[in-house]
């Protein structure tokens, strides 16, 4: 098997690894920031976001490898990220108390 064809064969796996490591971190970070929109004292929301982000990361990685294909893995990440990104976007210009 030539090098290029073996690369093509491995592309979905590489794609999943990238999705797991970077996509997972991105999703965890989005969740951490989105959770700061929780009511109550801002520092509480920040802490809850940080503490749960590792759980989100873990779940994301497991989803990425459990999904039936690399495409579905990415799709799952993006579908979850979308509402979180929306919340984060509304937070971009926050009205400080």
């Amino acid at each position, binding site marked *: 098997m030539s090098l290029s064809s073996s690369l093509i*064969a491995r592309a*979905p*796996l590489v794609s999943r690894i990238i999705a797991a490591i970077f996509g997972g971190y991105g999703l*965890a*970070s989005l969740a*951490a*920031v989105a*959770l*700061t929109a929780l009511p109550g*004292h*801002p*520092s*509480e*929301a*920040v*802490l*809850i*976001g*940080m*503490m749960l*982000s*590792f759980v989100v*990361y*873990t779940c994301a*990685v*497991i989803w990425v*490898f*459990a999904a*039936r*294909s*690399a495409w579905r893995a990415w799709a799952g990440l993006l579908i979850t990220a979308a509402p979180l990104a929306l919340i*984060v976007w509304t*937070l971009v210009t*926050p009205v400080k108390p």
Partner: protein
Amino acid sequence: MSTQETRKTTPKAPGIRQTMSDVHTWTGLLVGWILFAMFLTGTVSFFRDELSQWMRPEVRTTTLVDAATAANRVGDTLQRIAPDSPAWYITFPDARANTAQVTWRGTKGFESGAFDPATGQRLEARETRGAEFFYIFHFQLHYLPVIWGRIIAGICAMFMLIAIVTGVIVHKKIFVDFFTFRWGKGQRSWLDAHNVLSVFGLPFHLMITYTGLITLMALYVPWGIQAQYPTQADRARFNSEFSAFLNPTKPAGEAAPLLPLATFVQAAEQHWKDGQAGRLQVINAGDKTARVVVVRRDSQRISNSPSYQIFDGVTGEVLKTVDGARPAAETRGVLYGLHIGRFADDTLRWLYFLCSLGGTAMVGTGLVMWTVKRRTKLPDPTRPHIGFRLVERLNIASIAGLSIAMAGMLWLNRLLPVGLAQRAEWEINGFFIIWGVTLLHAIARPAKRAWLEQLWAGVALLALLPVFNLIATSRGLINSVRDGDWVFAGVDLMLLALAALLAEIARRTAKHQPRAKPAKRNAVAQPKISTGEPRTNG
């Protein structure tokens, strides 16, 4: 679709357990060597205070005095040696630490030393970082910028968390597996040992890994803080919610006597009723702007959320009282406290130690299993491919070699000349030099010989150190037991116990013969090669 993706030749898509098993294997393997080192050095850190005492044998256990008395005595000395320092920090002695640890801001950065709490005098002792080195190394490594060390440790911890969760998914019959330990069955026994260690300690491994990430989460996922606290001043405000640390302020330049430090300790202890002072911080002693912070001892509560009082150093007036935190902050405090285990009494501390040692063995057996499993599938076991050899050699140096390096550092603590310049650094450099030599040795020798030689070298270093203490110092095992000095006796006995453990592993490794391939795949008889996995089966 996924058929082509992961297993091109398999007719069916791999099941979820197979996929998770691959994830488990690779997350564990890729960072396993660093994880093993993090686990083992972290494990010893549960006895950091005791080991640090042992590494300063000149310092005899002095009469333990209460925090208020110690504060006054040490305060008097500081008035004399560092009157103009903008900040003093005193950690009081307790049942586990026999000296007051004092740090102050000098003209050239921070200075620190161990002080006798009863006399207040600075103690003369060999220069050593003590077990503090193992503690710091376990989350920040060494020779690297601090931030990078911590980020690498965090990535490894995240891999560990994934490995644990995928491990649970793989072993859905987790409790059945637990009761089916098959001794003396080669690879099967390795797997069983790995399973038993993992299942038995599962709650601990999960807790210690997750809480480890929590301790440095502000570094790993800072985005929420940056969103809510955009400026530097905002972030300082956020951080101050979790720390009793008071930044030095500009002195007024107007002299005013500092009240005796015992005053503040007593006032704070009165406020806590059943609580004791653990640390104290003085800002601008002798100035009108003097401030004193008394922090509650963390061995009395699980949470390490802030509990402290700030006083005006001149009038004694309470300026601020913080007891605990809001719910999420308290949760963080409890998770943090669970990780460092400062609250644990002796029994619980030993449980922590044993569970953590089990976690170390879990990582170690996992690493070794990778080679055991693959050896039977090698096309030519006498000439394994480069990846296999790399894993094999790294296993030797990281498992057996680390034990040698750690024991070696304790030897250096005893052997390096007391007057050596930068002695503390040389203990640590020595640790890494020895560790490096074990890697070279592991590469140079046949694998099985390398395992055996290193394991026995570890046994010798660990077992002979208490013997050396007996002969060359006045604080050997016999004297320690006679004096009831259980810190020194305990460390010596622990070294002997670890030597026995390594000797048993070495003995089993020596007896180990690689299993012949399973009958159905036979054709070629297993050649006699040096394999070199230490074995757990008898």
